[in-house]
């Protein structure tokens, strides 16, 4: 998928008067994306407010992607990779683990609840875990409400 526009994510979200959260999930190609795929072919329902972006590895997650998602209208961000020790590239998920810990401190400093950023491990066989993660995150973001950035 190529993203060519810089338009805010929020605009198409307002289809009814009821607010619906926007959650961007970055899933690694090898475990988590396949896990989400498994949830799909197993016909497990999960919250439609989660939109998936596939990345080759959770270690590809530049912290800039996360803050850009927040600044363009995401209310929550999920990063999901292979379980520790299972990374297709040996240690990409460990790199992301360290980054996310520091990034949570940074966004908290900006006034964003660090719970709006979630790092999880989902393997290719864990379709049900993926659905559970997505539902839990959507419920949490509904509790936290819409995110206002930079005001």
């Amino acid at each position, binding site marked *: 998928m190529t993203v060519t526009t810089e338009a805010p994510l929020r605009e198409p979200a307002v289809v009814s008067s009821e607010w619906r959260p926007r959650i961007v999930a970055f899933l690694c190609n090898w475990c988590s994306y396949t896990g989400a795929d498994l949830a799909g072919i197993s016909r497990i329902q999960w919250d439609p407010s989660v939109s998936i972006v596939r990345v080759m590895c959770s270690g590809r997650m*530049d*912290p*800039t992607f*996360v*803050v*850009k998602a*927040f*600044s363009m209208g995401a209310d929550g961000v999920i990063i999901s990779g292979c379980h*520790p020790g299972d990374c297709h590239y040996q240690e990409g998920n*460990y*790199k992301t*683990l*360290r*980054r996310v*810990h*520091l*990034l949570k*401190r*940074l*966004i908290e*400093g*900006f*006034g*964003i609840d660090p719970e709006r950023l979630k790092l999880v491990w989902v393997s290719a066989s864990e379709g049900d875990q993926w659905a559970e993660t997505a539902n839990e995150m959507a419920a949490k973001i509904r509790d936290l409400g819409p995110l*206002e*950035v*930079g*005001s």
Partner: protein
Amino acid sequence: MSSKPKLALYWAASCGGCEIAVLDIKEKILDVDAFFDVVFWPVAVDFKVKDVEAMQDGEIDLCLFNGAVRTSDNEYMAELLRRKSKIMVAFGSCACEGCIPALSNTTTRAATLDWVFADSPSTVNPDRVMPQTATETPVGTIELPEFWETVRSLEQVTDVDYFVPGCPPQAHQIWAVLEAVIDIMENDKPLPPKGTVLGAGDKTCCDECPRERQEKKIKGFVRIHEVIPDPDQCLLDQGIVCMGPATRSGCGGLCVAAGVPCRGCYGPAPNSKDQGTKMVAALASVIDSDDPEEIDRILDGIVDPIGTFYRFSMAHATLGRVTIGAPDSSGNGGES
């Protein structure tokens, strides 16, 4: 005299260091004076704002504008000088990315004013007298500019042609820029593309650093006053938070050569927009742990991530200003 190209320099929300840095080119300032007709430079020559207002649009050939935009007056001058100038240059870190003044974007206008005019230990103001935009006096109304909630860079207020980063820009870089401009104007050469960063490198500060990097992993961060760093080793390898990997080159590695970590004054590295998140990525890769609890313990050694990572680029942080929790931002909700 009137046939010489016209030069203007102005300071908005800044410390004045950029003005002094221009004089750091020493005797070459005479070459500048020989080539340009200085039409406006409040720190050095006695022209008034009304003299600029009286000029034709585009009459000034080159304007070096330093300082961030903090008040209504800063904004008025930025727009006025933009209109009157053919080439508008954001000169120095404040004009480029907000620099130190923009650190007040981590708190509120009210909290900033309270601290500066009433609460700081060196201030005695029991009646909490605060600056007003208009004050009636027997001799008439005295006016002060409005103090904005958020500090912005020059680019966020008006159209900017070129950027000269640095806090302050180094003298050799200033001269290189002025020399290039003189050459372009004298010989009718084409200008560089709009938006070009002048007087700086196209790599990171690490490229100019004389220290040796061994890509060590560390078990803890230390602050510069807590250790005497090894003179030859990379500071990051020694656990000292050094902004080098996320900062544009151009200074010549001054701080790191002197044993002090880079603070990031040349702004984000080329092709990156957010200095802070790049620093998050760089720092996370030197941490030697795969255990979440240990990682947190190591990260506790980084004091004030925002103030450190965005010390010079807060106005351009992707997440904007710090969001203050309560909807009522007029109180003392300064804690972020």
